[in-house]
């Protein structure tokens, strides 16, 4: 098949043995589903599921100027961040468009940061970071090939972390922090983060270490989950996906992620002046949630209309599994972004009425 031209994660053979439906994503061939998207989605909401997310990119920034440099390329503010802390944010182009959204881990070693980026952007991100490092005393390394990663997500994730993986220090982490720990001689980096709206952890290690963790969790009853439900879960929780709610032409302000761009707290970062200008001029469009009054399902790319005139476009849409409602997020013109605004979505030949609502369709259950 054409899948041969794509990279495989260390867990590839396990996915195939489990009968997963495999598909290309971000340069890798990844499991989309094992049993069904709905069952896997519900396993994460009600118990625990695990995802192979080894395709994610890892980039390290080290050196005397590391903090200053990360603050230069990153919208959030890492100054004064404690070791073991994690921040979500974006890297921007000078015009405010988004290079990528990412997590920045402040390592326990001095002057050292661990950046986790989207698989499809890892190469571009690395080049972007290096291209902007001139004048900074830092070393930038793309070490994506060295790391495998599993996301363990769901209300029972903590129980599996402490009782099955026997990692009490990791199980005790608070939201958006991480620790380095050892399990049976394997060095692991474990963070209390995820992309599902549920409590959970992300575990990073060598390929062999992550395969061992996968096997232990699988044997103890954690549901293997594919990228299909990863998308339905993150969508319900109001989390953006690069290429949909964020892109080279979408700024964090337009995506409704302004709280992660510290325009006021920081004096400088790439894209800051563009965001200030955009704020001053006022946004012309913004991401909103839309609920349809019908069972028809809005999908990415479908036009959003008002009185027969196109006013935006759906970026992600589903029949929400957890709420059984037809909902979507869409980029629409500013004057239609107020909660309660009636809009229509064109689905094939018909137009369906809907209402602008919050883009978080499911109440998240983070362990804060």
């Amino acid at each position: 098949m054409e899948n041969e031209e794509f990279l495989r994660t260390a867990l590839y053979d396990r996915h195939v043995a489990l009968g997963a439906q495999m598909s290309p994503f971000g340069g890798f061939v990844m499991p989309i589903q094992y049993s069904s998207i709905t069952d896997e989605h519900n396993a994460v909401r009600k118990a625990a599921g695990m995802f192979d997310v080894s395709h994610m990119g890892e980039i390290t920034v080290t050196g005397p100027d590391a903090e200053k440099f990360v603050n230069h390329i990153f919208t959030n503010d890492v100054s004064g961040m404690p070791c073991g802390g994690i921040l979500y944010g974006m890297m921007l182009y000078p015009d405010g468009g988004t290079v990528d959204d990412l997590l920045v881990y402040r390592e326990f070693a001095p002057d050292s940061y661990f950046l986790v980026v989207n698989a499809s952007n890892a190469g571009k991100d690395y080049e972007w970071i290096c291209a902007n490092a001139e004048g900074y005393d830092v070393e930038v390394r793309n070490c994506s090939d060295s790391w495998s990663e599993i996301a363990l997500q769901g209300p029972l994730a903590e129980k599996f972390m402490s009782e099955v993986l026997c990692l009490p220090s990791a199980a005790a982490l608070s939201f958006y922090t991480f620790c380095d720990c050892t399990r049976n001689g394997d060095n692991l980096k474990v963070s209390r983060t995820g992309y599902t709206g549920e409590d959970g952890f992300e575990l990073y290690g060598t390929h062999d270490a992550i395969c061992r963790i996968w096997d232990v969790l699988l044997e103890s009853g954690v549901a293997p989950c594919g990228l299909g439900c990863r998308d339905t879960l993150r969508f319900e929780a109001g989390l953006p996906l690069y290429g949909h709610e964020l892109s080279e032409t979408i700024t964090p302000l337009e995506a409704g992620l302004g709280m992660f761009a510290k325009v006021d707290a920081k004096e400088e970062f790439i894209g800051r002046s563009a965001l200030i200008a955009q704020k001053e001029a006022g946004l012309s469009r913004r991401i909103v949630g839309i609920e349809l009054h019908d069972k028809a399902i809005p999908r990415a790319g479908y036009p959003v209309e008002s009185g027969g005139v196109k006013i935006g476009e759906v970026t992600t849409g589903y029949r929400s599994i957890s709420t059984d409602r037809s909902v979507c997020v869409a980029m629409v013109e500013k004057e239609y972004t107020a909660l309660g605004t009636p809009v229509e979505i064109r689905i094939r030949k018909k137009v369906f009425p809907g209402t602008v609502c919050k883009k978080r369709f499911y109440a998240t259950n983070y362990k804060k």
Partner: protein
Amino acid sequence: MAKTIEGLRYSESHEWVKVEGNIAVIGITDFAQKAMGAISYVDMPDVDDELSCGEEFGAVESVKAASDLYSPVSGVVVEVNEELCDAPELLNSDAFGNWIIKVEISDPSEVEELMDAAAYIELCNKA
């Protein structure tokens, strides 16, 4: 192996057609429902809509995607299966036992252009 039924005609876009007099009863094949996974919505045309052969007339939706439906014949929609509005999953449990629309055939020669079961099985095996 997806099942087929002898005597039905099949389109390349995985619809089946059962001819009853001048009426084409149209549904999706077992192969199609398997490929879609759990079906959560069926978008159907209105009665009296005029369809031409190969024209999109609706869609079947699963969690992950919408899959367009194409009319295998030209004609006027005389009936849609309202049962699928509340129970789209019927297409998963029995794709051949649950039709989607009935069309009054305007050009019977179009039916002859469609595949028989053997040719359709060959198509599925290549997919």
